[in-house]
């Protein structure tokens, strides 16, 4: 996180705010509720309180404006700059301006007012932009499906105003760091020749424009699959990737979610109802079989016959000796299986059923 240059802060903690005008894009009551929720994010984790006033000068004045609106920072029409806010202080200080040339929404279509308001209020309270892509104070607009303060944001506001009076010490999600030696994964798959790693709300992939690996929100590609993926695999000859969460799965082709999903793993693959979710999955091109890993067992599914092979489930420890009895994630590349369990990665040859190498989970990221 970064504190605004000069460390401006409000000397009183019981702040007032006033909504001077409203966007026609949303009902007034929705705007009122959205702004109130945005303030609550910050009051929940700090000693600050926010009271709404309806006339006169409030500490934080909120308005929707077009183009040149008299503060020497004109807006630019649709897109690009969405809003801005001023650091704590008298008059214009603390005020928030939204660009009325944008379309303001309360869902995941552009642009979500709650997300932008929560960000701008961070400036009104003394925070500058954070380079943590998972932080609300990150400068670019990325809506990941829900609006919450990351641990980075919480650390920032508490550096200015101290902790909240709430007994439970609030915590927020931490953005994975690709070179963290303790990094583990929820799911991994190949996709059109690349390898995509999933963790919480984020994906990671090797990309020549990044020193270590590209990390961003899953929502950037699949907005309604924003987080908590548990397994994924690619059926390359169909240019299809299947993403699993709980007892459902989605099929995607590039960035497009195929119609008719999510579907049930019970109906589509024939899993017994005792299976509540899939830990990991991998398609083996030269046999046309997909291996599903669930707790200590694994199933084998025939993608051509579209049915589960007989004689399953079997014990993972028997079918894949040496990798342990549980799998977090797996993908296949050049005929080898790469199994991930915690911070360990096993390169496994399914033909000889032997482990070839043991690596750290994040060995793919040029750390």
């Amino acid at each position, binding site marked *: 996180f970064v504190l*605004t240059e000069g460390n401006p802060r409000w000397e009183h903690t019981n702040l007032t705010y006033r909504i001077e005008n409203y966007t026609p894009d949303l009902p007034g009551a929705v705007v009122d509720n959205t702004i109130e929720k945005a303030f609550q994010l910050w009051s929940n984790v700090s000693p600050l309180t926010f009271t709404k006033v309806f006339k006169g000068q409030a500490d934080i004045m909120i308005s929707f404006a077009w183009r040149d609106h008299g503060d020497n920072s004109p807006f630019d029409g649709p897109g690009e*700059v969405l*809003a801005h806010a001023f650091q704590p202080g008298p008059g214009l200080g603390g005020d928030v301006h939204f660009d009325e040339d944008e379309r303001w929404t309360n869902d995941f279509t552009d642009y979500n007012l709650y997300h932008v308001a929560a960000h701008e209020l961070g400036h009104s309270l003394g925070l*500058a*932009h954070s*380079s943590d*892509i998972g932080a609300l104070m990150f*400068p670019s607009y990325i809506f990941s499906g829900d609006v919450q303060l990351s641990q980075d944001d919480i650390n920032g506001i508490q550096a200015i105003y101290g902790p909240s009076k709430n007994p439970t010490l609030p915590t927020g999600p931490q953005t994975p760091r690709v070179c963290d030696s303790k990094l583990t994964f929820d799911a991994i798959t190949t996709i059109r020749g690349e390898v995509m790693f999933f963790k919480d709300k984020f994906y990671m992939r090797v990309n020549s*424009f*990044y020193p270590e690996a590209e990390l961003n929100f899953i929502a950037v590609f699949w907005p309604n699959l924003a987080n908590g993926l548990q397994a994924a695999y690619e059926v390359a000859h169909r240019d299809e990737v299947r993403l699993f969460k709980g007892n459902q799965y989605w099929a995607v082709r590039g960035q497009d979610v195929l119609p008719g999903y999510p579907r049930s793993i019970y109906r589509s693959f024939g899993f017994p109802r005792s299976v509540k979710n899939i830990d990991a999955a991998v398609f083996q091109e030269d046999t046309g079989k997909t291996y599903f890993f669930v707790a200590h067992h694994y199933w084998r599914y025939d993608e051509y016959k579209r049915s589960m092979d007989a004689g399953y489930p079997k014990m993972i420890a028997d079918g894949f000796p040496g990798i342990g009895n549980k799998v977090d994630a797996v993908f296949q590349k050049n005929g080898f299986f790469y199994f991930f369990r915690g911070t360990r990665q096993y390169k496994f040859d399914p033909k000889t059923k032997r482990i070839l190498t043991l690596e750290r989970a994040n060995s793919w990221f040029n750390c």
Partner: protein
Amino acid sequence: SHGFPAATSETQEQDMEMIQKYLENYYNLKSNEKQIKKQRKITPVVEKLKQMQKFFGLKVTGKPNAETLNVMKQARCGVPDVAQ
């Protein structure tokens, strides 16, 4: 890059105006600084571009590659990324 596979082509450097404006708005580049194409040596624009690439966790090259342009095209907050 937001694409499969990730953007791989170096840009033809055709978005010079956007780069210049972005760095002026958010990285304190003075508007009288010449653009990249007119200079061969290290210039304030290259330095500011590196500052922006570092902030966004991109490879710090000082060159306007596809990924850097992709970030610059994203909608964002109007507050600068560095102190004015």
